[in-house]
């Protein structure tokens, strides 16, 4: 099916500007405002964590105190008051419910509004066209429901909230957590290590091809709350998993902080496909409110012939600061990064990737599509590094920017470091504008101005949209249209 085929109907069917902007009245269990060692202890105690986990958090917290907030990104925002954030908020319901019946109905209502197929029964009933996706749902600070666990367990796949993995699979968590993104890595990852509250844990054993897509939906609901999720995915030898991540938040006037860490570990001949549709609240047209999305995502291709592919559609957030990266350590390992970043109104995005080639014959592909509208600023920042031993390593980068209107900006900042004599690195970049001619041509065939814009922009993004799993591709196409509303005329 052609990617943008159904776009226009979909755009037309979703008339709201930000349809996820509702606030749910759910009683929450909150930590006191602000951050200190006691808050870290509070979170650890709430999660019923073992001592070693608390120790690690405290080490990270103490290290964070010595660090400076980074300023090199091409984004501009008032200084964050880290003492004015709630670091823990949990819906007052039974934590870790045994089944969906124990989950607060109001909460299930929220997920229903988000269009998440939480109700296992319906899915299992085999309704035609129903999702075959296992879902973990994270609400503010806790994971509230994970579906399909039994079926996954049969295959030996572990898919659960990370807080549970810490208790039930300490050997795996100890071995891998922090092994790709150590707590010393950067300011926000250190903060995340200290105060992370939940997230998803996936373990795909040797030789297993995960029988369904795994998916996590993140939602920030409580006011003034930060969300610090932590995701860890391990793909053992000869295994495969496709993982999807979706994010939404209510409309609020103040800015909220989201600082996640995602670590992927890929062993011999294994593959992880990681897709994100990020639609945090972007703030209003005057730039009031919105999520600060400061995320560290990194994959380590440790095994030979291992492969990781990051696909992201970034349409939300007031500020995005995110560089999903690949460390290509195993010989013949492959890293891919496919990105669409749309900024409208006063949104700012500084996003890209790092491809670190260490092993022989490693290859990487980067396709970045940046779209700026309104007064938004969008920056692609990417590093390609070929190590001394990266014989015959290859990289191909395509970086396209599209401008809508004349008040926005697009910037491309590629870094290339090559220590290998035999490496090949290719970089292509283009910048174009949606022309009045193109819009008029579409309109003359009967499409409204906004339908025309959605069609043109979806065409621009086609190569990346095609990389998304079907369920997400449809949602992503809709989002492309919605996030550009008001950008024409």
């Amino acid at each position, binding site marked *: *099916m*052609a990617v*943008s*085929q159904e*776009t*226009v*109907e979909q755009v037309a069917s979703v008339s709201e500007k930000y349809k996820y902007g509702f606030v749910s009245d759910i009683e929450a269990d909150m930590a006191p405002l602000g951050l200190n060692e006691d808050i870290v202890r509070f979170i650890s105690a709430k999660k019923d964590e073992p001592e070693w986990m608390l120790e690690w958090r405290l080490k990270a917290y103490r290290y964070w105190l010595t660090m400076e907030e980074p300023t090199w990104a091409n984004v501009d925002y008032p200084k964050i008051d880290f003492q004015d954030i709630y670091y823990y908020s949990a819906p007052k319901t039974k934590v870790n419910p045994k089944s969906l019946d124990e989950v607060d109905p109001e909460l299930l209502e929220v997920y229903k509004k988000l269009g998440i197929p939480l109700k296992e029964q319906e899915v299992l009933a085999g309704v035609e066209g129903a999702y075959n996706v296992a879902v973990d749902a994270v609400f503010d600070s806790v994971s509230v429901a994970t579906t399909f666990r039994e079926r996954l367990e049969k295959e030996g796949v572990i898919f659960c909230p990370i807080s549970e993995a810490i208790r039930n699979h300490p050997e795996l968590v100890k071995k891998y957590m922090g092994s790709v993104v150590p707590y010393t890595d950067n300011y926000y990852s250190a903060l995340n290590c200290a105060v992370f509250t939940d997230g998803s844990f996936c373990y795909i054993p040797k030789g297993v091809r995960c029988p369904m897509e795994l998916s996590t939906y993140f939602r920030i609901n409580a006011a003034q709350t930060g969300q610090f999720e932590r995701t860890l995915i391990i793909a053992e030898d000869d295994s495969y998993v496709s993982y999807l991540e979706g994010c939404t938040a209510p409309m609020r006037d103040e800015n909220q902080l989201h600082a996640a860490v995602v670590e992927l570990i890929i062993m011999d001949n294994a593959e992880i496909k990681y897709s994100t549709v990020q639609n945090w609240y972007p703030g209003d047209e005057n730039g009031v409110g919105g999520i600060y999305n400061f995320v560290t995502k990194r994959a380590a291709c440790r095994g030979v012939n291992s492969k990781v592919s990051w696909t992201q559609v970034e349409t939300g957030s007031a500020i995005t600061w995110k560089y999903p990266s690949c460390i290509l350590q195993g010989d013949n390992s492959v890293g891919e990064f496919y990105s669409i970043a749309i900024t409208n109104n006063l949104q700012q995005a500084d996003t890209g990737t790092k491809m670190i080639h260490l092993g022989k014959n490693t290859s990487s592909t980067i396709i970045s599509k940046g779209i700026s509208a309104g007064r938004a600023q969008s920056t692609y920042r990417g590093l390609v590094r070929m190590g001394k031993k990266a014989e015959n390593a290859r990289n191909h980068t395509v970086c396209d920017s599209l401008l809508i209107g004349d008040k926005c900006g697009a910037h491309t900042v590629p870094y290339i470091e090559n220590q290998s004599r035999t490496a090949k690195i290719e970089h292509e970049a283009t910048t174009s504008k949606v*022309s*009045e*001619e*193109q819009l*008029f*041509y*579409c*309109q*003359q*065939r*009967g*499409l*409204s*101005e906004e*339908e*025309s814009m959605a*069609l*043109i922009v*979806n*065409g*621009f*993004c*086609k*190569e990346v949209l095609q990389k998304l799993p079907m369920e997400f591709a449809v949602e992503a196409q809709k989002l492309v249209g919605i996030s550009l509303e008001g950008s024409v005329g």
Partner: protein
Amino acid sequence: MLEIKDLRATVGGKEILKGINLTIKPGEIHAVMGPNGAGKSTLSYVLSGRAGYEVTGGSVLYKGVDLLDMSPDERACRGLFLAFQYPVEIPGVASATFLKTAFNAQRKFRGEEELDAMQFLKLVRKKTTELGIKDDMLKRAVNVGFSGGEKKRNEVLQMALFEPDLMLLDETDSGLDIDALKVAADGVNRLRSPERSALIITHYQRLLDYIVPDFVHVLADGKIVKSGDKSLALELEEKGYAEISAA
């Protein structure tokens, strides 16, 4: 069908159309000829509602309704089709997707049921076969990498698909070889009916050998200076615009 009265329009502050009067009845084909810079393309853009073409006076009634009040897409949905002189490229959007999206938008406007992918494909294949257009064009991105002839064929295909009530052809013959010209003319002639009208804008008489107009008008310096039947086109070809305009 179309009633243009004392139409005046400016582009970038400069007056290009200086009082056009033209009435097209259902079933009629009118040709507007004129030298470069006379305002031929401006007339087609004003009628189709392109931004930047400002109407400063006069009126246009289309099927008895004020045309100038409608958005470009509404005009299209109500059956006004412009075949572009320079069809526009839309990278990444397959022609089939573009056609289906636009086709269904028009159907939706008219309160008709939209066609699904299979129904649409069947319809569009029928049209390509009739017009002798290769199907592979449908898979390619809209006009991207098309030759001049292919672009014009694509316009004709769209016209055949949308079956408009009023066809505006803006120098469709420019840059076409004789075969492509025949395809274009064939596309228009197939659509000729007592209910359907056309306004053909052209610089040369050549196209009118294949699409025989009922009326020919000469546009010079933003005004229609002479009208007649098809023999006027031949006279123009012989004597040139300067003499006719001066007369």
